[in-house]
C-alpha cells in the first residue's frame, strides 16, 4: 500500500423503489462483475421487501393494515417492532417533535413510520455491499446514504444540496465510512411537521446530519428539522455533526468534535 490515494473509477447504478431513486456508486474490485450485480440485486430486493411491509402508500402493507386496526402487532414482522422502537426512542429524545404518529387535518392520528424506515432500510440493504472485498460503495435512497471507502482510497465526497437553490451545493463532506442524511421540504413539500403542534417548520430550510450509521443520521436530521429554530442547538447538545441551512440563507456547521 502506498501513501498515495488512488483514484478509482466509479460505476453507478440507479433503480426506483418506494417512490424514490436508489443510487449506488461502486469503485474498486467489484463494480460490474457478477458479485457486484448480485449484491446490488440483493440490496434492491431488501428495499422492495421493506416497502411491502412499511409503505403507507400501499393499502396492503402491514403498516397500513395496522393503522386501520385490521391486524395487531403480533401479526406483523418483528422488523416493524424494531422500527417502532426506533421511532419511540427518537420521539423521547426530541421531546415529542418527532413521532411516528401523525395527526391529520381532521385531528385523527395515523401510523406513519416512514421517517424511521428509510435510513433503517438502507442500512439493511447495504449489508451485501459491505461484503464485497476491496470495494467501496455509497448507497443512497433519495438523498440519504451509507458509504464505505477503504483506507487506501479517497473518501467519498458527498455534496449537500442547497435547499434554496437546488442546482447548487452548500457544503461538501468527505466520508470514509459513515452516513449522510438531509431533511427538508425542498422537493416534497410539507411532509415534515412538529408532531406536538402539527406545524410545518419555517425557520429552517434543511438539516443535514453526518453520523456513523444512517439510522442515526436520518432520524437526527428529521427530528432536528421538526424542531425548527432549535435544530442546531438540539444537534449540538446530543453530539451530532451536521449542517443547518436556515430559511434566511445562513449556513451553520454543527460540530461533534471534542474541540
Amino acid at each position, binding site marked *: 500500500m502506498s501513501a498515495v490515494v488512488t483514484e478509482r473509477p466509479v460505476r*453507478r447504478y440507479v433503480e426506483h423503489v418506494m*417512490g*424514490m*431513486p436508489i443510487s449506488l*456508486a461502486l469503485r474498486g474490485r467489484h463494480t460490474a462483475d457478477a458479485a457486484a450485480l448480485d449484491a446490488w440485486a440483493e440490496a434492491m430486493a*431488501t428495499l422492495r421487501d421493506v416497502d411491502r*411491509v412499511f409503505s403507507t402508500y400501499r393499502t396492503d402493507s402491514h403498516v397500513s393494515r*395496522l*393503522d*386501520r386496526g385490521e*391486524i395487531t402487532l403480533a*401479526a406483523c*414482522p418483528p422488523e416493524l*417492532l*424494531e422500527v*417502532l*422502537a*426506533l*421511532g*419511540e426512542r427518537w420521539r423521547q*429524545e426530541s421531546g415529542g417533535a418527532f413521532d411516528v404518529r401523525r395527526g391529520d387535518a381532521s*385531528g385523527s*392520528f395515523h*401510523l406513519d413510520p416512514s421517517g424511521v424506515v428509510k435510513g433503517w432500510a438502507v442500512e439493511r440493504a447495504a449489508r451485501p455491499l*459491505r*461484503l464485497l472485498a476491496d470495494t467501496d460503495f455509497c448507497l*443512497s435512497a*433519495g*438523498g440519504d446514504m451509507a458509504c464505505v471507502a477503504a*483506507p487506501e482510497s479517497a*473518501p*467519498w*465526497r*458527498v455534496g449537500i*444540496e442547497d435547499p434554496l437553490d437546488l*442546482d447548487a451545493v*452548500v457544503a*461538501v*463532506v*468527505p466520508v*470514509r*465510512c*459513515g452516513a*449522510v442524511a*438531509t431533511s427538508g421540504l*425542498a*422537493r*416534497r413539500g410539507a411532509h415534515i411537521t412538529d408532531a406536538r403542534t402539527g406545524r410545518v417548520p419555517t425557520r429552517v430550510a434543511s438539516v443535514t446530519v453526518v453520523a456513523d450509521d*444512517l*439510522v442515526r443520521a436520518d432520524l437526527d436530521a428529521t427530528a432536528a428539522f421538526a424542531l425548527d429554530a432549535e435544530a442546531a442547538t438540539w444537534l*449540538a*447538545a446530543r*453530539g451530532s*455533526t451536521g449542517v*443547518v441551512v436556515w430559511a434566511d440563507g445562513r*449556513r451553520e456547521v454543527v*460540530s461533534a*468534535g*471534542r*474541540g
Partner: protein
Amino acid sequence: MVNGMERGVRRIVFGALSTVTVVVLLFGYRTSTEGPATTAALPAITPVTTTESSDTTGPSTPTTTQTPTATQTPTATQTTQAPKATQTTQAPKATQAASSPKTVTGDQEQTQWGPVQVELTISDGSITDVAVPVYPSGNGRDAEINSYALPQLVQETISAQSANIDMISGATVTSDGYLRSLQSALDKAGL
C-alpha cells in the same frame, strides 16, 4: 372529534409503543445497524402470510405487558455529553477574477478523529475543487472504522458539476423529481 375508529387506532399504536420500549431494552437500536461482522444474524424480512381473522376483533394488548418503567431514558444519557457549541463557519474567501486556478488552504481543524484540512481550488471566482489533504485516517489499515470529516461549507457560487462530488445529499428526491436532480446528473455520468 375522535370517533370510535380513531380511538381504535390510537389504542393500537399506543399499545404498540409500550411493547416497543421492551424491544428497545432487549436489543437496542444497534441491532439494525451492525456492521458486516453480524450480517448473518438478522433474518430477512418475512411478511406474515397467515390470515389475521382472529386479530380483527379489536385491538389486543400486547402479550408482553411489562411496564416500561425501566427503560433507559436516553435524554438523560445524552445530556451528560458536554454540548459543543455550534459554530458558524465562514467559507474561505476567494480572491476575485483570478484567471488561472488558485489554491486556498484552510486552517487545520481538530476533529475527534484527528486533524482535518481542506484545500480549495478556485478558478474564475468559483470553487472548482475541494480537496482534503489532511484527513484523519488513523493508522491507515483499520478498515470499517467509522470516519468522516466535518462538513465544509463552500461558496454560494459552487455548482455540483464543478465540485468533483460523488453523491448528493438533499431533501428527499422523489422518483418524479429525480430527473431534474443533481444526483441524476451524477448517475448519468457514471452509467
